[in-house]
């Protein structure tokens, strides 16, 4: 049995939701089920993720959705590595008949409440970071970005190219938090936050929730929306992934992240090649992860990702429309759940003004550094 995504649900992304995280989770999950055209009671699986208890557990969501039962309830303490991984786990449960309709969600008052960007991650590696002022996740990604740019012969302007290209998409995305156009000149004029990153290299934190509904392809064919087939799903942590989410000290090569390690298996499982991809949604808590991801997945040659973006290749009329929602940089930080949802909308042909002309195959990634996950979604 093959699994597919049959619906997506969002709340508004805002600076201050004025709602509880549970209410946000409930609303996004309810919207995803309604989008698929299913009755709520058909849901029998809920999977969510959180960092430092910033979300609500699946059992609470099942309670407020008044579900008759859960056959799968999973709460994972993970960050941006999670969304594709959890969709893959949900797909496996569906494929083996252990659940029929599984919601995968992320909910957070990520702006007005606990903010992941400045959150201190308790963990075995924390003692080596926070006391010395190495105390925000963007510093860790910036550390990789610096080495990546140096070693691949790229520079700040290549990061800027990502921010500018993605902002262009956001100008027509009503969900996006940052919608004002951005030029490279404006980008260059921004002060550094943590060099080499400026504000526009960083995701914008928001309050909100996003959910997708995973079911079997057979069932999805009878539902309201065209199915987005889960053609392949892979999670990968490389060797020595560290002591916790912020500990990268034992990683060898900061110019290659998990995308380099999982690409062969991902494409192999789907019987596809990187050249078959029509749309890419690359996890982008920070601009550099788009460049590393494009190169790691083999969507462009090593050292050419900045030029690739600057050439217009990632724009709507380019060879590979990428981060068509504006990415986490512009749409907002729903921790990559919205990255998956955007890929679903694209594959379904529901991208509206941002619809990629060719959209039979989309690649999605989740995660930035040592570990992460990816999906290949195909038109049903």
């Amino acid at each position, binding site marked *: 049995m093959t699994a597919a995504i049959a619906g997506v649900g969002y709340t508004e992304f805002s600076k201050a939701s004025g709602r509880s995280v549970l209410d946000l989770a409930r609303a996004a999950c309810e919207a995803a089920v309604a989008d698929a055209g299913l009755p709520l009671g058909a849901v029998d699986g809920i999977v969510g993720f959180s960092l430092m208890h910033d979300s609500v557990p699946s059992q609470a969501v099942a309670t407020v959705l008044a579900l008759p039962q859960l056959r799968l309830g999973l709460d994972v303490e993970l960050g941006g590595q999670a969304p594709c991984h959890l969709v893959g786990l949900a797909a496996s449960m569906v494929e083996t008949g252990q659940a029929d309709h599984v919601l995968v969600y992320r909910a957070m008052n990520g702006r007005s409440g606990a903010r992941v960007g*400045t959150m201190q991650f308790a963990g075995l590696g924390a003692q080596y970071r926070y006391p010395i002022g190495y105390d925000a996740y963007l*510093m860790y990604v910036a550390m990789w970005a610096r080495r990546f740019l140096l070693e691949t012969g790229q520079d700040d302007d290549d990061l800027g190219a990502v921010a500018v290209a993605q902002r262009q998409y956001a100008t027509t995305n009503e969900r996006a938090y940052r919608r004002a156009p951005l030029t490279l000149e404006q980008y260059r004029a921004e002060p550094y936050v943590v060099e080499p990153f400026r504000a526009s290299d960083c995701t914008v934190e928001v309050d909100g929730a996003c959910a997708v509904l995973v079911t079997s392809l057979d069932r999805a064919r009878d539902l309201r929306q065209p199915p987005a087939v889960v053609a392949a799903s892979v999670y990968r942590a490389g060797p020595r992934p560290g002591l916790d989410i912020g500990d990268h000290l034992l990683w060898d090569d900061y110019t290659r992240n998990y995308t380099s390690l999982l690409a062969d298996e991902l494409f192999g499982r789907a019987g596809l090649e990187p050249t078959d991809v029509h749309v890419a949604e690359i996890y982008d808590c920070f601009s550099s992860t788009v460049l590393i991801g494009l190169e790691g997945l083999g969507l462009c040659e090593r050292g050419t990702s900045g030029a690739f973006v600057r050439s217009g290749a990632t724009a709507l009329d380019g060879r590979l429309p990428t981060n068509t929602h504006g990415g986490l940089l512009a749409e907002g930080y729903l921790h990559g759940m919205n990255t998956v949802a955007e890929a679903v909308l694209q594959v379904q042909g529901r991208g509206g003004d941002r619809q990629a002309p060719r959209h039979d195959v989309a690649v999605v990634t989740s995660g930035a550094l040592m570990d992460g996950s990816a999906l290949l979604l195909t038109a049903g």
Partner: protein
Amino acid sequence: MTEPTPPEPDQDSASFWTALAEHRLVLERCTACGRHRAAPVPACPWCASTGTEQVESPGDGRVYSWVTVHRSFGAPFADQVPYTIALIDLTEGARVLGRLEAGTSPVHAGLAVSARFFDHPSWTELRFAPAPEAS
């Protein structure tokens, strides 16, 4: 200035912090494969051997990467921006984090540095400065 919250050593890491307080940088060396590591862990992350010996390091290494913090994210560091945190590949092969002492500019990959010990009221921080022979 506000003091940062001190590190909270655990059973594995206590020896590292104790040595720093004595202005010594002590690494773990795997007795099976010979690789060095800075943050102490119960087994070798390369070969899983639990055979470990502690070796004192002269603290010489080269910059692998670095970030310069222009906007602080915690009160203790607000009056210290801009400051630079670097990843240092020690001569022994272990990779460690440390602030580069003020005035280390320009920084470049491969810059030769050596360890410095910066005393806080209740703990000692490992920092780095350009090695004398580097200039």
